[in-house]
């Protein structure tokens, strides 16, 4: 739990040493299990081997009654520390020769039974075997082997375990050192770069990546983040300059009109044209104020959209009526620009829409057509296509380059340069957001110099 509070190097150290420790414990347990489960068979094999050897060696000593030679043979058992005693009997059961590890061991017992046997006493393993010459039994061999308890056998493994622990520690340490270097060095470099960027706001820095693992992916992600941050900062800066320019633009005519108004009001000599002049100046000023209001409204809309506060008030409305009203509202403006403006509006199309927002969409598209249409004919169409209502605005103006098709719907984006065309580049962004909030979509078909066709599709109201 407190693990993640530790530095990564220490975490790695703990993990590696825990793993090594667990492996060691498992190995030790395996050794213990193996040792205790194979001890008896091993003892039996060992005693059997000793027995087989002496059963071969001893017949001659029995045949020629040479217990000294027999005991010389048996003396070799001093190198088998766990063989306590070996007794040799003649076939009659008479004691013949013996080996005792030391004098504390009891002397040979009387030979009672005469048949092969192996017996586990409390701490001994005893084996009685006949000594044969061909098929004839000429004597008996009785071996007593001392069984060691498990704990007494373990010291044999002590050195081995020590060596393993030492080796494991050294290997773990080297492993940890290499791993720590491999992982934390690039991580620290990343952290240093991130901190540097955070303090200097220099988003043009890129982190160089090594390899293609997760760390490299993290580096890539950081670089991507830096790139998008840099781009959005550029967009914000562009927008600030455009927006301030746009907001400033109406202020100059307003100021001029108001100065004119002031001048007119101070005029003593008021001719017959004076009220008319007064009215025109005021109207001009109001028009600029409207433009300013529109710009601020757009900004507010963007702010609403980005903060998720764009709420639609939808009601079942005749889309045909709304498109027709918009058309009629724009006819004078097109006339003033002496641009041909035609509409083809299908009747009885109804949809669940926010009336003001849809009007805003149509107005946006129409003013764009007017703005970028180079006074060439503009068409507005409303039709039913399947279960959607399709609004099409077509101009034959400057068009949009293919590489800009998606960008024009972004925030603060404009394909055309600010010098020739005004506006903050918010219109299409807001339009797209409104259409999508209605569950519809907006697409554009365009060719540079040939004009653009914007198509808005909004789901029809389902028949109640």
């Amino acid at each position, binding site marked *: 739990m407190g693990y993640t509070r530790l530095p990564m190097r220490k975490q790695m150290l703990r993990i590696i040493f825990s793993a090594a420790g667990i492996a060691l414990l498992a190995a030790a347990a395996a050794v213990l299990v193996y040792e205790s489960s194979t001890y008896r068979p091993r003892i039996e094999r060992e005693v059997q081997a000793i027995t087989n050897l002496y059963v071969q*060696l001893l*017949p*001659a*000593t029995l*045949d*020629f*009654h*040479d217990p000294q*030679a027999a005991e010389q043979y048996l003396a070799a058992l001093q190198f088998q520390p766990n063989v306590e005693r070996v007794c040799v009997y003649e076939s009659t059961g008479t004691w013949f020769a013996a080996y005792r590890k030391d004098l504390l061991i009891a002397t040979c017992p009387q030979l009672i039974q005469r048949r092969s046997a192996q017996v586990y006493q409390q701490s001994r393993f005893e084996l009685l075997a006949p000594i044969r*010459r*061909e098929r004839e039994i000429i004597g008996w061999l009785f071996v007593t082997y001392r069984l060691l308890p498990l704990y007494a056998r373990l010291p044999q493994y002590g050195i081995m375990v020590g060596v393993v622990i030492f080796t494991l520690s050294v290997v773990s340490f080297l492993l940890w050192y290499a791993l720590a270097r491999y992982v934390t060095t690039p991580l620290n470099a990343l952290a240093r770069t991130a901190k540097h960027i955070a303090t200097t706001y220099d988003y043009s820095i890129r982190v160089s990546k090594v390899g293609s693992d997760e760390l490299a992916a993290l580096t890539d992600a950081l670089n991507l983040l830096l790139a998008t941050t840099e781009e959005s900062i550029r967009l914000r800066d562009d927008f600030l300059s455009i927006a301030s320019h746009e907001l400033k633009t109406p202020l100059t005519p307003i100021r001029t009109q108001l100065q004119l108004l002031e001048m007119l009001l101070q005029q003593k000599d008021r001719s017959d044209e004076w009220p008319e002049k007064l009215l025109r100046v005021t109207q001009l000023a109001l028009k600029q104020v409207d433009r300013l209001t529109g710009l601020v409204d757009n900004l507010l809309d963007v702010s609403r959209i980005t903060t998720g506060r764009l709420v639609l008030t939808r009601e079942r409305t005749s889309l045909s009526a709304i498109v027709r009203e918009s058309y009629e509202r724009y006819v004078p403006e097109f006339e003033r620009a002496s641009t041909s403006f035609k509409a083809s509006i299908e009747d009885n199309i109804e949809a669940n829409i926010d009336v003001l927002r849809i009007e805003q969409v149509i107005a946006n598209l129409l003013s764009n057509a007017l703005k970028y249409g180079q006074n060439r004919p503009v068409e507005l169409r409303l039709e039913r296509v399947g279960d959607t209502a399709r609004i099409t605005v077509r101009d034959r103006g400057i068009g949009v380059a293919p590489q800009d098709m998606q960008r024009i719907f972004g925030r603060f984006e404009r394909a055309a340069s600010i010098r020739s065309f005004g506006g903050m580049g918010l219109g299409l962004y807001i339009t797209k957001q409104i259409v999508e909030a209605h569950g519809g979509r907006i697409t554009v078909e365009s060719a540079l110099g040939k004009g653009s066709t914007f198509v808005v599709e909004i789901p029809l109201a389902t028949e109640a």
Partner: protein
Amino acid sequence: MRPFQIKQRFAGLTIPCLLLWLFVASWAEAQTVPLELKVKAAYLLNFGRYVRWPPEVLHEKHTICIVGPDPFGPLLDKTVDGREVQGHTVQTRRLSAHETIVGTCHILFISPALPLETQAAVLREVSGQPILTVGDANEFLDMGGMVKFVHYQDTIRFSVNLVAVRRASLDMSSRVLSIAISVRQEDLPRE
């Protein structure tokens, strides 16, 4: 009459004493002398178990021969009765010093009662033949004999002249050689 009487009285004591002495002596004889012979007889049987003869001399019977006066009497026959050596039933043969030995015996015990010259002559006769010669005389090995019984710390042991054994194309097991008191490995110059 009196001396007679005395003599009679003496005889009356002497005869039981003499009888007792005879009894004790014969008992002791029966216990001690046959023990040594018993051991030797058993050894004569057991040597056969640790010697390999060339296949051409293997017959269905394993023959232990005694040349010269037999010190064992019925003891040897009793010892070998019903026993087998390397899968062959065992038989005994008693030969005089002048009989042909070659081709009939596997083990030849040369009686210590024979004069040394006779023993030597017998050994010369069987020299190089696959017959294990066993004897009692001190000079037995020097004369070309193979196994000599030796008194050693109250028991009977034996010495081996391995050179003679090998010359006879016999193969003696190391298990027996390791028990021998001494093993002569190389030919000593003959006197």
